[in-house]
């Protein structure tokens, strides 16, 4: 396959017009009781992926809706060719409702229920049969040349150190601007880690409404700490962040905000919601790596850029995660996990612009099929941001 021109990539066109950079068949367990069976189907059938989680029952209100949106979003993500929704049968999050939402994209979706199909073994057999057929259908699909305007790229930093704000995050900011300039979408997340930097983003909001929302979501996050009567510093910055030289949440936030580049902030969306605008978009998520990653992927991100100073294996079952080291020492130490070294900025051998450019080309390569380290190591992380108790 020829190397695409800059700002283009080879992707899979889906029935709803969106474009995938991967062609997975997803076995989607809508309840924790079905996760083991889902995992066993992935072991039987090549080309399938799944994820383990602990949710799907006894949830109510906004918490139910957020979890539902996350399940449906994972299935609807254009990196997924087709979905087998696997339920137990009696759970709150009915497999049929989740499947109905995913079916709106026009992709193949089928439901298997462990209780209806006579137990675990028969449900696994039924799910595997459907999955095998979907994988074969998916395998004849050809990639076509697509434009970066069809990309949603999630940005994230995890295991931050004092270099995050100096090297990798500003370099991701350059990529974010390039993606926006090519008509694509860049998602900024981690509301917790923007506390103390919100005024800089509010200034860049396209209108008053978006600026007001910036302060609202920051206040809501800060109020959660007040409500619990805790010092937010007991969780953030983390012990590793502190060892790396970060002293306060504000310091971490000011470094994290660099990922957003310099373009106007178009909208602020809820967790796991799909952006309605192109350009720079902020998704309200916690700072927790896996939960924010899941939110962005459920919101339609096909590729994720993830900067790290301490090193982390985090990946997604359906979206390639490009790991970027903030310093050369961690890149050398964890090259098995990290794809790109931005530590050259700290070493003084490469500019922020040059690393940004290199990362932009890496996005095109990965979107065209190049595997990331997290994919090769089958790092299939998934975690839902819970906003209410289980009943």
């Amino acid at each position, binding site marked *: 396959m020829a190397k695409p021109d800059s700002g283009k990539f080879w992707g899979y066109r889906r029935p709803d017009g969106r474009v995938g950079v991967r062609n997975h068949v997803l076995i989607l367990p809508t309840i924790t009781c079905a996760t083991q069976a889902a995992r066993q189907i992935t072991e039987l059938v090549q080309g399938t992926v799944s994820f383990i989680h602990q949710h799907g029952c006894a949830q109510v209100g906004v918490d139910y809706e957020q979890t539902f949106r996350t399940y449906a979003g994972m299935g609807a993500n254009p990196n997924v060719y087709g979905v087998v929704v696997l339920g137990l049968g009696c759970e709150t999050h009915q497999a049929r409702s989740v499947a109905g939402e995913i079916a709106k994209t026009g992709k193949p979706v089928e439901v298997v229920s462990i209780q209806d199909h006579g137990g675990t073994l028969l449900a696994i057999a039924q799910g595997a049969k459907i999955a095998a057929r979907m994988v074969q259908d998916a395998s004849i699909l050809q990639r076509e040349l697509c434009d970066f305007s069809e990309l949603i790229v999630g940005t994230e930093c995890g295991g931050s150190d004092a270099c995050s704000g100096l090297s990798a995050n500003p370099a991701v900011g350059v990529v974010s601007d390039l993606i926006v300039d090519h008509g694509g979408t860049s998602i900024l997340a981690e509301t917790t880690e923007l506390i103390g930097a919100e005024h800089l983003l509010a200034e860049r909001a396209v209108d008053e409404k978006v600026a007001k929302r910036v302060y609202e979501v920051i206040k809501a996050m800060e109020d959660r*700490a007040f409500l619990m009567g805790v010092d*937010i510093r007991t969780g*953030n910055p983390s012990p590793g962040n502190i060892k790396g030289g970060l002293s306060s949440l504000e*310091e971490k936030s000011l470094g994290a905000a660099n990922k957003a580049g310099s373009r106007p902030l178009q909208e602020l969306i809820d967790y796991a919601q799909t952006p309605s605008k192109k350009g720079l978009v902020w998704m309200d998520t916690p700072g927790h790596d896996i939960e924010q990653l899941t939110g962005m992927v459920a919101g339609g991100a096909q590729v994720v850029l993830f900067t790290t100073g301490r090193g982390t294996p985090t990946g997604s079952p359906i979206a390639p995660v490009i790991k970027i080291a903030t310093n050369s020492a961690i890149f050398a130490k964890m090259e098995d996990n990290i794809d790109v070294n931005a530590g050259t900025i700290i070493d003084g051998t490469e500019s922020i612009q040059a690393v940004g450019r290199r990362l932009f080309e890496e996005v095109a390569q990965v979107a065209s099929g190049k595997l990331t380290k997290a994919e090769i190591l089958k790092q299939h992380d998934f975690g839902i941001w819970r906003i209410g108790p289980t009943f």
Partner: protein
Amino acid sequence: MGEAYKTVMMKPHDKVAVALEPIPAGAEVSVVCEDRSFHITLSDPIEFGHKFAVVAIRQGEDILKYGEVIGVATREIGPGEHVHIHNLEGKRGRGDRLGEAR
């Protein structure tokens, strides 16, 4: 000494600079940011990625990095001193402070 240590200071009015390599106590460092330059003798060893004060900071004063507030000094900090969680306290998300006189 004569050795030039690698450091970075983000904005000219920042109170701190970051060490880009481990620097021993007693080292003399030069920090330049736009039109400002500082020659400081470090009173503490500074690890890679950690911060030191480039100016004297009073107790209760805001500490600036990236030209923005990253917290408040919990005690007097002299130029060349390590600035970290032992003498800098974040101001945001402090649920533990609720109920205290403000």
